[in-house]
């Protein structure tokens, strides 16, 4: 067992556990976007940052990838952590406002506006779909390509992959997919998985009000356009 301190509480956790697992087991909430039980942690969304260490050496690390270490001091909701999370959510809202998941998270953290130039990106590159495809579906049909600004997810050469079984796993785990489904043009979809699923946007009329955490609701704004 490993002894560490989480938010001032002395606890013991199993060796090999990550800080996220430890904190969640003990009931400390840590928001995540790119983490999912059953998939390997990746550390892409940075939402799960927690503060470790003390004094000038204190730093933020992602709880999902950082292993629990003996004697570690962890703070899951210090002012530095909260500030960082809010900024991350603001950045997310600025890029991908139409995601229900992101709107809910932002709302829960009291982020109700964003100060950047509004973008409408389909994907936050959390990599859940890539890991889902590789680790649970054993397919490796999709992956990352490019870097920096031009990083994207797709199949090799942008043609439907032979190893894709159209399971729809990628769509199922996607936290930003609400407007991404291209049901009407299945050939444009990342892996063609949509063909198997009832696309969530079909029932959009009903969800209109529920998405209005934002003022003005950006998703509605887009629809107006």
């Amino acid at each position, binding site marked *: 067992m490993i002894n560490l301190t989480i938010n001032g509480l002395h606890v013991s956790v199993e060796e090999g556990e990550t800080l996220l697992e430890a904190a969640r087991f003990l009931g400390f909430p840590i928001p995540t976007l790119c983490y999912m039980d059953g998939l390997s942690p990746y*550390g892409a969304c940075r939402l799960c940052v927690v503060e470790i260490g003390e004094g000038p050496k204190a730093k*933020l690390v*992602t709880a999902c990838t950082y*292993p629990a270490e003996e004697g570690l001091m962890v703070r899951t909701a210090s002012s530095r952590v909260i500030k*960082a999370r809010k900024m991350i959510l603001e*950045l997310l809202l600025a890029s991908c406002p139409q995601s229900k998941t992101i709107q809910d998270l932002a709302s829960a953290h009291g982020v109700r506006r964003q100060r*950047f130039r509004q973008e409408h990106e389909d994907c936050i590159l959390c990599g859940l779909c890539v890991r889902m495809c590789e680790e649970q579906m054993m397919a490796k049909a999709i992956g*990352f390509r490019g870097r920096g600004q031009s990083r994207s997810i797709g199949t090799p050469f942008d043609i439907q992959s032979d190893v894709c079984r159209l399971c729809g796993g990628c769509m199922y785990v996607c936290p930003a997919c609400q407007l991404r489904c291209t049901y009407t043009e299945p050939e444009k979809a990342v892996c063609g998985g949509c063909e198997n699923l009832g696309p969530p946007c079909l029932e959009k009329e009903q969800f209109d009000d529920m998405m209005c955490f934002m003022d003005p609701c950006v998703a509605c704004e887009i629809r107006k356009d």
Partner: protein
Amino acid sequence: MAQGYAMKRRRSIKDFEALQSRIMTDHDDAVPTIVIPAGTCCQASGANDLIRVAKRELLDKKLTDTVRLRITGCQGFCQMEPSVLVEPRGTFYPKVDMKTMARIVECVARDEVLADEFFVTPDTGEQIERQEDIPFFRNQVRTVLGRNEKIDPLFIYDYIKNQGYSNLAKVLKMANPDWVINEVKVAGLRGRGGAGFPTGLKWEFLANQGNGHGKFLVCNADEGDPGAYMDRSVLEGNPHCVIEGMIIGAYATGATGGVIYVRNEYPLAIKHLIVALRQARDLGLLGENILGTGFSFDINLVKGAGAFVCGEETALIRSIEGKMGEPRQRPPFPVQKGIEGKPTAINNVETWANIPIIIEKGAHEFAKIGTENNSGTKIFSLVGKAKYTGLVEVPMGTTIKRIVYEIGGGPVGDARIKAVQTGGPSGGCIPDDLFDIPVDYDSLSNAGSIMGSGGMIVMDDNTCMVDIAKYFMNFLKDESCGKCFTCRKGTQRMHEILDDISQGNATNESLDLLEELAQVVKDTTMCGLGQTASNPVFSTLRYFREEYLAHIQDRRCPSGVCRALITYSINEKCKGCQLCIDACQQDAISGEKKERHFLDQSKCIKCGACKSVCKLDAIDVA
């Protein structure tokens, strides 16, 4: 030089030492030698033509027995390339053209010098003959770079003649790996890649890892900072010192495999490395059973595919494994789990090049150079608005002032030097009132910059700090691997705000947002690239906030760089020479000969072509 010695495996240390002493006695230092540096930078400025002329002249005039020719790597004075050095006098000829080259060959054969081609100091007009008397060289301590001019990188015998591989022989003879690690620790060598982690400590960690399944040593030659090329010059000019350093390191730590990770944009370095590795293997200095001691170690060359982030060690490891170059969470550190899960120690080219020097000089002697905690020398690539640019090697702790003014010769023309940017895109700008701080890892980081791999960009009044921050942020947004959301999107957004500022579209709130965002990017990213990505913003804001405010509040760029905020106009000094009319691609300037010209603002794209050709200072930028 290569003739006469059999390229055969040396099976014992004694064998090797016999070869070395034979090479040294065979070589007559008094024979005049023409040294032509031909690194990538030298070749770009025309060194290949000089080599061709020199060879032809030597053959035509039948001088091949009396005059030697040596093609080496870059010597560092890149501003004056292509240059020629004549040994043993040490005569230095800057900016040599083909005709002068032929004359130099003639003169060398007659044991004369070409006084009219000497280096001239612009201020005093004084002619300086010998390389070591030129201020650029005189004020340096060239322990690593100084070897470049003595060695033809394609001939291992050249290196062996200059004490090469004798330090390896010394270590092998001593047969005490702990002693080597201790020497490196006592010498206080810190990683030259930028972070400054003590090399001896890293080696000790690696040596203490179990050796059941192999360990790796890596030479990180993925030098990607804009304007920095120290590692390239070392690899091109003296690949053997890196190889020798790695073999010594492997002996000390028990590593079984070595990798040199070099970026594919360095074809000459790759070529020289391939040749050097082959020659070292042929002589039995690398591979199985090195010099008959039973110790085996081999080095592979891995070429990077052009991603800046692959210089980060965990990304580099993934790249070597053939995966996508993106960093991962540490711990576990590479020294615990590196290439294919095996313990791996990664050091920079310059660090490896320093290892043979430590063994040769002794740790205590090495530690005397530089300052406490920052021992040895460091190579900087001094570029930008300095009079003399090139590679500069100085002891740690030398002040920026000394590097910029005494070695670099100060500003070009009348401009005032206002800052130096160190550490590449992840570094920061240091203003001129702090030029007295010593250049070492700790002082630079206290000043808000970093040592980095050693880039040093000099900036004068004509450089806009917002523009500089924007330039580096543009580089980082393209080179971020994109894994961490805050690094990918954060650098994009910071660039967006900086662009707004330079366009005059920003408000005071934008500046607050920029600072807030920069802090979060620094806090929440995984690897060194993201954690230091905010440095260009932080350091320019810390020292040059008034420039930002001038852009935001006055809609004015004080340095006359940001195009959206400046206008060009022609003042009364114009004599109507029509040079600017020819230079303007937009036909924005009109006017009769010998009459003051007129600039049409609606057509002007603010490229600055007119200003650069005007000899009368008649173009105003405001």
